[in-house]
């Protein structure tokens, strides 16, 4: 290929530390789709936990270095709707006191994509070959759905996989109860919200509960494993990459 | 004690501190609501059958019962029948000056006890008599100034001869209306209200009520129950000759 699409991974702290296999799946998947992938190694976290808890000066410091780190990236791909939302929707505001940096943040925002959106909107929804098989259901993570207005791209990708049957999750658009520090501050409320989500997921008869956000994944897989459910929570990248993701 | 000037001063002071606000407008009001209301009325003189059909659908959806009759005589017979079916005896009505002179005698002829509102300036005794009659009545008979097709609402403007209690206190409310009352939408109601308020002479009462079906509540375990405070049944009689 003459001019491959180039993408930098903003892998997010949760994927880096807890779900590296999601990052690996994303790399293998994107490479298979002809994307040239790089990983700016000094990245840490997008700062969303700080921002959401009200620590805005601190979040701005994180944003500042992230903007600089990805200053020359052609595209930035993020395996989490919430982190993509943070970069796209909140960085410009956080950095607006420094007009030059604010403008850079705007630029970064426009080049940043959540994974499913990147595949559909930038790569043009190519056919994806995966050996993943089974019945899946999809959970809309709140920031991807309401923050970025995206509900179709992930479903479109899943629906087109030959060995995958997508069944709709009742209440798919309702929160799983994660909410970052919310799940630590009010753990029992968070768990009560999760309970409904998991009951709905199990009722679909799906083998896998797919999400596009490592936060939701952490919450939902934690609940599923605790209750010994046969349903597994997986990231969209893992479905699309199949056994490549090990 | 806070005075108006102090209150407004404080509001103004805070308003002055607001940083860049987005451009916002309130709703576009009709320039000449009177003329526009007239246009709506003219159009409805043609379109009223469709409006009545929609009204009927919506009114019944909210639990109302609609009758279509030729004239006041038939309307009175309908009221008498409604009363008979419910073993109702006592009727309170708006004034004959509003509902027409034939109503009261016809209802009486049908065997009902009728307490009609009298026109003119009611004194304390008259008020108290009417209030008592309304509280005791089984059926309240009123007109309707507007019938809104979009929502199935009856709109009543209070005024001399148009007591509020008649549509409120008795367990059964019967409203009589003609095609001139029909409007299609709340938006049109807005135009008509703008026109009414523009011309202070047109509104002789202090209250306007939208009545959309019977009084209802679902405050105990979400169980829908009718007639909690207002009427438990609302009947509307469309009179072709009106």
């Amino acid at each position, binding site marked *: 290929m003459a001019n491959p699409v180039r993408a930098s991974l903003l892998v997010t702290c949760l994927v880096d530390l807890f779900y590296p296999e999601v990052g690996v799946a994303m790399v293998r998947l994107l490479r298979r789709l002809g994307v040239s992938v790089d990983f700016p190694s000094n990245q840490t976290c997008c700062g969303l936990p700080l921002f959401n808890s009200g*620590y805005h000066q601190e979040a701005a410091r994180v944003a500042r270095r992230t903007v600089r780190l990805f200053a020359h990236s052609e595209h930035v791909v993020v395996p989490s709707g919430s982190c993509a939302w943070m970069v796209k929707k909140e960085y410009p505001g956080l950095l607006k006191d420094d007009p030059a940096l604010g403008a850079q943040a705007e630029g970064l925002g426009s080049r940043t994509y959540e994974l499913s959106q990147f595949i559909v909107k930038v790569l043009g929804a190519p056919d994806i070959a995966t050996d993943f098989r089974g019945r899946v259901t999809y959970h809309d993570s709140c920031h991807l759905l309401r923050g970025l207005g995206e509900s179709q791209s992930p479903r479109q990708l899943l629906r087109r996989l030959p060995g995958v049957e997508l069944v709709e999750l009742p209440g798919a658009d309702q929160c799983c109860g994660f909410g970052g520090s919310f799940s630590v501050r009010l753990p029992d409320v968070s768990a009560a919200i999760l309970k409904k989500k998991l009951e709905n997921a199990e009722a679909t008869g799906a083998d896998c509960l797919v999400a596009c956000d490592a936060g939701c994944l952490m919450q939902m897989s934690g609940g599923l494993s605790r209750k010994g459910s046969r349903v597994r929570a997986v990231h969209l990248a893992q479905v699309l990459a199949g056994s490549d993701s090990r | 004690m806070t005075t108006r000037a102090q209150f407004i001063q404080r*509001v103004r002071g805070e308003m002055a501190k607001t940083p860049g606000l987005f451009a*916002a407008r309130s709703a576009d009001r009709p320039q000449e609501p009177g003329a526009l209301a007239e246009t709506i009325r003219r159009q409805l003189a043609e379109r009223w059958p469709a409006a009545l059909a929609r009204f009927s659908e919506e009114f019944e959806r909210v639990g109302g019962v609609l009758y279509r009759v030729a004239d006041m005589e038939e309307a009175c017979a309908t009221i008498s029948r409604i009363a008979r079916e419910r073993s109702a005896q006592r009727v309170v009505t708006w004034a004959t000056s509003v509902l027409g002179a034939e109503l009261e005698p016809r209802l009486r002829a049908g065997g009902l006890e009728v307490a009609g509102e009298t026109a003119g300036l009611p004194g304390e005794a008259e008020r108290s008599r009417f209030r008592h009659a309304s509280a005791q009545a089984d059926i309240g008979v009123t007109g309707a100034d507007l019938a809104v097709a979009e929502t199935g609402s009856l709109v009543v403007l209070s005024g001399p001869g148009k007591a509020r209690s008649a549509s409120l206190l008795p367990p059964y409310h019967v409203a009589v209306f003609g095609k001139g009352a029909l409007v299609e939408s709340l938006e049109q109601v807005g135009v008509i209200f703008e026109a009414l308020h523009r011309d202070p002479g047109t509104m002789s009462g202090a209250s306007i009520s939208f009545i959309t079906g019977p009084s209802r509540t679902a405050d105990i375990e*979400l169980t829908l129950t009718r007639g909690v405070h207002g009427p438990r049944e609302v009947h509307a009689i469309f009179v072709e000759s009106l």
Partner: protein
Amino acid sequence: MSVGELKVPFVERAHRALNDRFLQEALNTATTRFMTLRHEAFQAFPQGEALRERAREIKEATLQKLDFYLEQLADNVERLGGHVHWAATGDEARGIILRLAQERGVKLVVKSKSMATEEIELNEALEHAGITPVETDLGEYIIQLAREKPSHIIAPAIHKTKGQVAELFSRELKRPLAADPEVLTKVARGELREKFLQADMGITGANFAVADTGTVVLITNEGNGRLVTTLPRIHVALMGMEKVIPSMTDLMVFLSILPRSATGQKISSYVTLVRGPRRPGEMDGPEEFHLIVMDNGRSSQLAGTLREALYCLRCGACLNVCPVYRQIGGHAYGYTYSGPIGILLTAMLHGNHAVRDLAHASSLCGACQEACPVKIDIPRMLIELREHLDRERIAPLAERLIFKSFARVLTTPALYRVLGRLGRLLQRPFVKDGRLGALPVFLRGWTDHRDLPPVAERSFRERWRELER
């Protein structure tokens, strides 16, 4: 819930609600029902979306000329023969109502549902002065008898079973009553009808107040709003100053979206427009009309973080869709206004200290904003409120230190990497079957209910070296 219970921390109140099985069932049924009704109503109303935008803009436009509209409203109410009073605080509003009642020898007051009067705890004040207030909205009547606060803006007694209501009514009326909503409603009708006819004063709130006609608008399903404004000889309406709207044309926009958002109805059973006291020649209606315009903390947000909360129509849609409200119900919040918008209004009325914990009672999922008829950006304001808690040092010191150190870690990659490795080391005693099932200290709450994945043996950045090839 009495105010004294605020001494119980929010976390504990929420915990109690979660363990109340009836409450859980009632909340789930009610909020799901309201949510579905709202959803269906807007699906069948394609112009709804545009009207919501319109409504939002009207609210903003009104706030931008609030001084003008308030004066116009006052002029018109007075022109119609009403009296206008100005209350800078809740205290002052209570004082005005008490004075009006006492000067006129009022003994019995009937009220239609009003969050504004709840906000100033008017009933307690009236009782204290020897005046009997009777709530006439069935739900409000129930909670008044039970001496509780509303648990939902539009369905104040959803937390009560019919059995509890029957018990309450039986005790109050000293005769045994069946636990049948139909029967209980009929009994309430009889009781309250007497009160309506005897009362000297009717007190209402105002869903809207139309500036250029001087009209106070009341929306009810039961019809009590009409009775309260028809039978007693004095009508007093208490309105939050943000309830003013410019014109009748604007009103029609709100009439289309408020009932749909609240109960899924195209319009509520009764919409009552009050234009001052009764006119000469009218058979009924009050002799006197008083409008009290109340500030009580609202003006301080005109230029503040919570400005948009002043758009609120009190429809309750955000409560019904809020995953937190759906679990804990209204009482756990501890203040008059509950749910996501309630947190903002509580901050507005009681200051930021009051929401130290409440500000975090949201997963920021955004469902509230999506459901709001005027699209109030509640999540954003919650985040900004949290920012104030840090800036004003209201947030606990330990929390602030943790987040500030966390920021240090995130801006120092070497430190971030070291901590990742440290976590891997420290978690060893706790990893079982590849997951963390029971962690100590602040993560205990999490692992009490669900597992946590362990920090991976090799982080993504460590694996990247081989992926890079």
